[in-house]
């Protein structure tokens, strides 16, 4: 039982990082980014190549991928999303879907579609934590995820840029009146989302393998983002963790009853149930509209 809980927290912490990618973009731009999964892929493949082909040490490769991801997100916003400001939401959504397909196709062309093992970033074996033996990868996933979240929460609470970004999330007109460049905030949000996507992707690949279907895993983090309220950083953390734990428990206790499959869908069932009770998620901003 404890073991299930631990691996649930480890998977959940990766889900949290992946969910954070959705949240960072949605919070400021109110766009749901269907390309988030492929942004995760880009970071993962880049790290993979840097480690295996260029022979860089893993932490350095991860760092470079994060920076590259940031630049990619920034550029995507500038070139593709900027002209779409003010256009209907549906058009923007379709644009991100199309973008996702294109990036995936390019990745397939460059790296091929077959799965490959990710070079081990962490020493094998396990660490003894609270009387439980847990694999090193799990341990580092939890630590990095917490690190990422602490950094982002501090950034949003303390730095002028972070406060400006929250101001844009609250009211774009007022933000521009006070001198904040709303378009710069949008571009930064995309950059950050791709950056955390790279982190999540590398951990995901370390546990599974490098393959083109990792983006589907990113979407399994989506219920975590919704559960947390779509626009709350802390909510993404708790939502992701909850989904990880629930998935593991469902895999252990529900799968045998149904003959499998529950682990894959339970997150979405929980999401739907949660939305019925709390339409704005656990920590989402409640928008009250008077009709």
């Amino acid at each position, binding site marked *: 039982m404890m073991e299930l809980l631990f691996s649930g927290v480890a998977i959940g912490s990766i889900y949290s990082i992946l969910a954070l990618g959705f949240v960072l973009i949605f919070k400021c731009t109110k766009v749901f980014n269907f390309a988030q999964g492929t942004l995760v892929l880009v970071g993962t493949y880049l790290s993979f190549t840097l480690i295996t082909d260029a022979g860089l040490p893993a932490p350095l490769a991860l760092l470079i991928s994060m920076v590259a991801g940031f630049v990619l997100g920034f550029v995507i916003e500038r070139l593709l999303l900027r002209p779409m400001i003010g256009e209907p939401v549906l058009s923007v959504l379709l644009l991100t879907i199309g973008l996702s397909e294109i990036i995936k196709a390019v990745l397939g062309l460059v790296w091929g579609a077959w799965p490959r093992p990710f070079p081990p970033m962490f020493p094998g074996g396990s660490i003894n934590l609270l009387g439980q033996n847990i694999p090193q990868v799990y341990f580092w996933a939890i630590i990095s995820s917490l690190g990422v979240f602490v950094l982002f929460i501090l950034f949003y609470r303390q730095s*002028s840029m972070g*406060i*400006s970004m*929250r*101001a844009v*999330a*609250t*009211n*774009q*007109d*007022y*933000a*521009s*009146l*006070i*001198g*904040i*460049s*709303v378009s710069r905030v949008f571009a930064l949000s995309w950059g950050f989302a791709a950056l955390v996507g790279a982190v999540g992707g590398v951990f995901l690949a370390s546990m599974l393998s490098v393959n083109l279907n990792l983006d589907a895993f990113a979407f399994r983090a989506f219920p975590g983002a919704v559960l947390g309220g779509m626009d709350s950083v802390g909510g993404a953390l708790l939502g992701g963790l909850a989904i990880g734990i629930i998935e593991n428990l469902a895999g252990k206790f529900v799968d045998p009853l149904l003959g499998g499959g529950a682990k894959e869908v339970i997150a979405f069932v929980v999401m739907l149930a949660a939305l019925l009770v709390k339409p704005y998620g656990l920590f989402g*901003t409640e928008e009250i509209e008077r009709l």
Partner: protein
Amino acid sequence: MLSIENIEVVYDEVIYAVKGVSVKVPDGQIVTLLGPNGAGKTSILRAMSGILKSREGEITGGNIFLDGQSIAGHPPEKVRRAGIYLIPEGGGLFEDLTVEENLRLGLLHSRGDQADGLGKAWEWFPVLQQRAWVRAGYLSGGEQQMLALARALLARPKVLMLDEPSLGLAPLIVDELFGFIRKINEEEGISILLIEQNARRALAIASYGYIMENGKIVLDAPAGELLQDKEVKEFYLGFGQGSKRRSYRDVKHYKRTKRWLS
């Protein structure tokens, strides 16, 4: 000096909201723009601060100069950086952010002393310091306007524009607020363009006043003269025909909606 020259604003390409208005705000002065609902006062402020576009509006004629530089049609963040600061109706606060975070945003692009930080705001408005960690949305209406003013004070613009700051506030709070507006003008040397419906209070602190109706300026004069003007007295200040009390039945405002226009 801020000068608006013959500005025209059209919404949705058909609604002609401002029909050639000129307003001057000389350095260090308080100028007020008065007029009933729908006269086009807010449209002028939007045109100046560059947020017309998000309201489907457009400047179709005229120009706006700040110290000789044209700022018409510039995006809002650029106008702000040029030194014009608008407090929109309701204060323009970020309700999800705390009082302190709202104030910190005032320091962006401030011409004031950054090293002072929020000190000046706390000094002027001690009430806000006690509530530094409260979300702005939970402040009372009066406190929200104080916070909006405090943020403008930190921003140290050349020209501060206020859109109906007295809206929905108790008379005592309005007195206090107008005291602060005058103090910002006198002690900080910030020129002010004040848009109001509360004509008496606005004219009391302003040096010059414009009266707007149906998208045009119908009357402009030094504030002292406007306060004495017979028609202004009757329609904006609530006196009419000497000090004799009249029955509301005789007022018949509806018959005289086009008051200065032929």
